[in-house]
């Protein structure tokens, strides 16, 4: 199936695909350049955007060529390491799935880079930002283009690292540094899962190539497949911020908004889903693990929605929403090959929509200077363009007919219903919840009174915008450009993908997908749409009448328990703190105490004991000759008797 052969008709494709490592190397080089060499602004912007742009262009060319039906290609660069009998190589795989992801990553990356030209025009460290952006693109492309688990792991850790560097971008902010550390540590601990899975694969089947694993894992036995499945799920949960490992993503909002748009909404968090999708053969062999994926997906779907519905900061609400949408992804991936196709659909559309939403929010927060919902409101008149962009994303994500979200979610709901009806029903409810929190967000941000003009306090509680010396920013051409492109894609993307995606992904997932019509509506769709309508209208009416309690900064005791738990982000942080961090700190303190008190003092005590013994022994040197003689005689007597006894025995 996947071979690297020279086809006569696609000679140029082979040539281009054979050099696909340029996709990764070019932004990497640009990143090194930006991070190590000083340059003027004009160069900076061209180089910064160009680095990503070149990758995107290359990916587009490859994609267009692949549309002409050439075979997927594996490009083997060199042998990285032989471990036992297995050989791990640095090789890249260009197939239907990876090229889609490459397009997503590079495309959104380019748009975000263009946006950042305007957004960060007043940021003194913008050179570092563009360098990190390019580094991220290189790492993420390595992740999606890798042909085996080890190389994927390298990319996986690398994106975690860049995420850490970007979350803590403003290093003077203690909050940001903390958030960065939490994100990195949580991700790395969960990466134990991926590492263990790799180890198991290497010991049990002796290969880590995706294709080979698919073929050979069946021979080994189901229980190992289950172990690998669960281990991979652990890693994916952290990376995609599934419940209960979601708290790092919410704190990650300290990073500059363009970074959030790229990393924490569209691409890196999708890596978890990508891993599960690539490992689909493993999950087909391990029903328990697949069930776990489904359950985690549903749990996150609702958990994320819960948090989003009670969120107090616009960026955090979007982050919770990301978590929830990725729950959809997991749900779909756990449904099998058909679900996997639609998981990709969801991934692509969600990436575009969320990026657009984040960029809109970025314009908004910089204009106003704060991001807490309490301090926003009435922005329709101030930022009409942004409102339109946001509204496009909003409509797309809640599932208005013919827009992206409608197709993505509709297919997932239908597939879920066919596989396990309960999950289908839950998915429908999820749509309703999604509509609620997104409408709430829209209303609180853009409609109502302009609270941001009344109360200047509360800016410290905002994410990211609290960085010092940042003046309000008017929108610029670059920012608008990216926003426009993303909004249009959000609107029309679903239409474009719907008919074509299942067929395109056929070789990858071998899924039989039936419904592909654009105007295809069945009863599930009607039910969903009905629910949607009811929820939206109801929310609008509700927020017209009622002002949220927490606007008045009253004590939290007044709130309903549901709201309190959601607002506290399901107490995940506290649970982690109490359950994991505190015990480990205690042990660590104990160990340090042992070190300083027990061992140090023990060693000193030993020293002193030796000294005192030595002083005692000195008493033997009495200077008295006759004592010495006595000792001689006694010693000799002992020796002689010992010898005699020895000889006798």
């Amino acid at each position, binding site marked *: 199936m996947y071979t690297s052969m020279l086809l006569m008709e696609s000679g140029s494709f082979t040539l281009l695909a054979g050099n696909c490592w340029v996709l990764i190397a070019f932004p990497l080089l640009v990143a090194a350049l930006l991070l190590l060499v000083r340059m003027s602004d004009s160069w900076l912007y061209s180089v910064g955007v160009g680095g990503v742009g070149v990758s995107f262009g290359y990916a587009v060319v490859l994609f267009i060529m692949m549309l002409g039906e050439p075979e997927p290609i594996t490009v083997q660069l060199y042998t990285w390491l032989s471990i036992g009998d297995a050989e791990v190589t640095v090789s890249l795989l260009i197939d239907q799935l990876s090229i889609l992801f490459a397009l997503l990553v590079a495309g959104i990356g380019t748009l975000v880079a263009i946006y950042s030209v305007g957004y960060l025009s007043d940021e003194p460290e913008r050179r570092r930002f563009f360098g990190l952006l390019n580094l991220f693109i290189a790492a993420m492309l390595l992740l999606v283009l890798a042909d085996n688990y080890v190389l994927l792991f390298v990319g996986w850790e690398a994106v975690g690292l860049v995420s850490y560097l970007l979350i803590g971008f403003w290093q003077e902010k203690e909050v940001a540094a903390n958030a960065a550390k939490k994100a990195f540590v949580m991700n790395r601990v969960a990466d134990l899962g991926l590492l263990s899975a790799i180890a198991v694969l290497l010991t049990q089947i002796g290969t880590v190539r995706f294709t080979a694993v698919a073929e050979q894992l069946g021979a080994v036995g189901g229980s190992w497949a289950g172990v690998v499945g669960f281990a991979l799920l652990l890693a994916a949960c952290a990376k995609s911020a599934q419940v209960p490992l979601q708290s790092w993503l919410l704190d990650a909002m300290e990073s500059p908004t363009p970074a959030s748009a790229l990393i924490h909404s569209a691409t890196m968090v999708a890596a978890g889903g990508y891993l599960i999708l690539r490992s689909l053969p493993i999950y087909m062999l391990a029903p328990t693990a697949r069930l776990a994926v489904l359950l985690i997906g549903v749990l996150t779907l609702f958990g994320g929605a819960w948090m989003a519905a009670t969120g107090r900061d616009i960026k955090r609400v979007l982050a919770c929403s990301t978590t929830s949408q990725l729950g959809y992804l997991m749900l779909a991936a756990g449904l099998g090959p058909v679900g996997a196709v639609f998981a990709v659909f969801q991934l692509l559309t969600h990436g575009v929509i969320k990026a657009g939403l984040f960029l809109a929010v970025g314009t908004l927060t910089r204009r106003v200077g704060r991001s807490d919902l309490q301090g926003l409101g009435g922005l329709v008149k101030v930022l009409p363009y942004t409102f339109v962009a946001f509204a496009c994303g909003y409509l797309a994500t809640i599932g208005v007919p013919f827009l992206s979200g409608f197709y993505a979610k509709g297919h997932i709901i239908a597939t879920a219903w066919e596989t396990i009806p309960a999950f289908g029903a839950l998915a429908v409810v999820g749509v309703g919840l999604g509509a609620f929190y997104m409408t709430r967000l829209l209303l609180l941000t853009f409609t109502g009174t302009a609270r941001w003009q009344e109360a200047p306090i509360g800016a410290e509680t905002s994410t990211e915008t609290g960085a010092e010396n940042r003046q309000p920013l008017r929108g610029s051409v670059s920012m608008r450009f990216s926003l426009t492109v993303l909004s249009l894609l959000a609107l029309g993307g679903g239409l474009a993908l719907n008919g074509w995606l299942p067929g395109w992904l056929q070789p990858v997932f071998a899924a039989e997908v039936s419904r592909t019509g654009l105007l295809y509506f069945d009863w599930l769709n009607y039910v969903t749409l009905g629910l949607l309508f009811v929820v939206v209208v109801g929310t609008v009416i509700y927020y017209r009448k009622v002002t949220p309690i927490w606007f008045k900064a009253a004590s939290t005791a007044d709130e309903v328990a549901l709201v309190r738990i959601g607002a506290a982000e399901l107490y995940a942080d506290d649970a982690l703190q109490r359950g994991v961090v505190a015990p480990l700190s205690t042990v660590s303190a104990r160990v340090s105490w042992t070190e300083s008190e027990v061992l140090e003092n023990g060693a000193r005590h030993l020293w002193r004991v030796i000294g005192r013994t030595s002083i005692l022994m000195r008493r033997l*040197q*009495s*200077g*008295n*000759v*006759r004592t010495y*003689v*006595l000792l001689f005689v006694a010693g000799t007597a002992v020796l002689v008797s010992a010898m005699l006894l020895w000889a006798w025995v």
Partner: protein
Amino acid sequence: MSLSAYLIVSAVLFCIGLAGVLLRRNALVMFMGIELMLNAANLALVTFSEAHAELDGQVAAVFTMVVAATEVVVGLAIIITIFRSKASLNVDDARRLRH
């Protein structure tokens, strides 16, 4: 004559010498005790040499006599020097070399 007689004499001489060294305080008398012990060992060596009809024991005895003579020379020199500084032959008085 039987071996044991000579050995008993040798043992008795050795014990007398040992007692002298342990119990007397006069340096010269201790020296005499040491000489007694050496000669007791000599006697035992010659006895065994005769018993095995080999010369090894007598050779060892000659060695011992040479060593004894050397040791007496050096030892007496030391005792005389100490006597000159302390005017006493009591061994307990020469205790400067202590901790």
